């Protein structure tokens, strides 16, 4: 399994645990007193699962198992693939940090971080699509 696939899959597993912790926190509010920002964790929870875990696991396993691009470059551009990994994970982490704070309008204002997170994840998504496209073929 290539190094980058291992990074994707292990990062995915870490996000899975983080997601379930967020899910427990959201639910725990119904039985114990928790700070108000916990109530705003719902989108963070959903995306830790959907982006951090499911999508990242798919990208990692795909990077490893999809048909080879060419003999010299079996996995397409390695630089692009690493860039995707870094942008996606930094982007998602920035969302986790900033979205609950922006939702409760906490000071200092982290809106810039949330906006940056949107841009980084957007670039990561399209880089992945572009770099994977040519590997989806019959031979």
């Amino acid at each position, binding site marked *: 399994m290539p190094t980058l696939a291992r990074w994707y899959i292990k990062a995915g597993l870490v996000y899975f645990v983080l997601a379930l912790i967020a899910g427990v926190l959201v639910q725990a509010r119904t039985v114990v007193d928790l700070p108000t920002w916990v109530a705003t964790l719902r989108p963070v929870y959903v995306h830790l699962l959907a982006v951090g875990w499911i*999508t990242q696991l798919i990208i990692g396993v795909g990077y490893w198992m999809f048909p080879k691009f060419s003999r010299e470059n079996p996995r397409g551009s390695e630089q692009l693939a690493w860039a995707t990994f870094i942008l996606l994970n930094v982007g998602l982490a920035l969302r986790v940090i900033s979205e609950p704070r922006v939702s409760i309008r906490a000071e200092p204002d982290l809106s810039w971080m*949330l906006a940056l997170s*949107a*841009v980084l*994840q957007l670039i990561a998504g*399209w880089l992945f*699509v572009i770099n994977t496209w040519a590997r989806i073929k019959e031979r």
Partner: protein
Amino acid sequence: MPPLSVWMVRVALLHLGIGFTFGALMLFDKAAPTHPDIWRLWPLHIELTLIGWTVQLAMGVAFWIMPRFARLPNRYGRRTTLAWAAFALLNAGVLAVCAGNWWPSLADLTLAGRIAELSAVILFIIHLWPRIKPPGA
């Protein structure tokens, strides 16, 4: 990878790209309001990412890697037409649900789209069922 899987995975990639784009538009808008209509993308974002991307990718990969039949004329089984129909219905369904949620005049399409998605999944399962088998069977 068989042609149907190529189609499914490539279309799934497009749904991912567009779904991420809609998500990023909403997230950016949370940080710096851009346009009031942005949040109407909410149901489209969910449809594209969950059904268009995740479900379709899983279907494409399953059609590719699940056990095949060495002794049949078509190694992918007798019911591949059903899997092709599932591909068409799933994507028609996603598009219909998106259109129905975006244009109020087309709201009825949402139900039609959900029925198409349901039919797609049932047809795909009928195709896949006999392929979940021990080696050589």
